[in-house]
């Protein structure tokens, strides 16, 4: 029973490995992105539109600022969860 389960897991992992390695070979050559129109727009317009020298910061807080709000929310959620998990019980 236990061996059978392990065997299934190994087979699944092997199939996964074959597909993923095959797809990593099919990716565009490393260092030569096949398409970069969105990023080129950001590189050339970030200074003008957001006033920030750091293009990554301009992406994080301006172009994709909403993601950052979500990310801050994730951290807030985790902190709330951790404090809730370690709260002092009444009967402890």
């Amino acid at each position: 029973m236990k061996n059978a389960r392990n065997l299934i897991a190994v087979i699944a992992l092997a199939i996964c490995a074959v597909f993923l390695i095959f797809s990593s070979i099919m990716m565009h050559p490393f260092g030569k992105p096949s398409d970069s129109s969105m990023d080129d727009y950001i590189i050339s317009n970030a200074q003008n539109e957001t006033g920030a020298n750091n293009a990554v910061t301009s992406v994080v807080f301006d172009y994709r600022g909403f993601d950052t709000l979500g990310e801050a929310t994730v951290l807030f959620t985790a902190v709330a969860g951790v404090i809730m998990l370690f709260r002092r019980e009444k009967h402890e």
Partner: protein
Amino acid sequence: MSEMSKIVRTISNSLFPFIMIYGLYVIMHGHLTPGGGFQGGAVVASGCALMLVAYSSEWVFKKVKESNLSVLESIGAIGFISLAFLGIGVTFFYNFLVGSNLLFGEIPPAGPNTGNLNTAGLLPLMNLSVGLKVIAGLFAIVAVMAFVASRGMRKK
């Protein structure tokens, strides 16, 4: 966790301000150099964690209450979402300070330049509030876990 030796405590005492200043520098210069609110906040929080290791978690909890950290984090988060809300005259998250004559309103010259702190509009303010949030949040996680671990150890 009990207190560590006097040597460790002295060295952490003298290192602590430098870590703080470096973290705040990373936060404030997020729009000019690598870094930003999260990275700088993590640096400051790790400085606080250093004090936690050098002294004990009980000592830290005498200085800061966990509920105060929670409130500080809420304030940081509210600051961030309020900054996003301020632009709602145009759209949510609109960076209305860029190009104005107000705080951080300048636009840097195109291409490589030497960097001007007074640029980027809302971005430094957002960095600051996110930094506050990350400091409070990460330190709350580490401190609560350390406190619980030490409480569990004492019980045995």
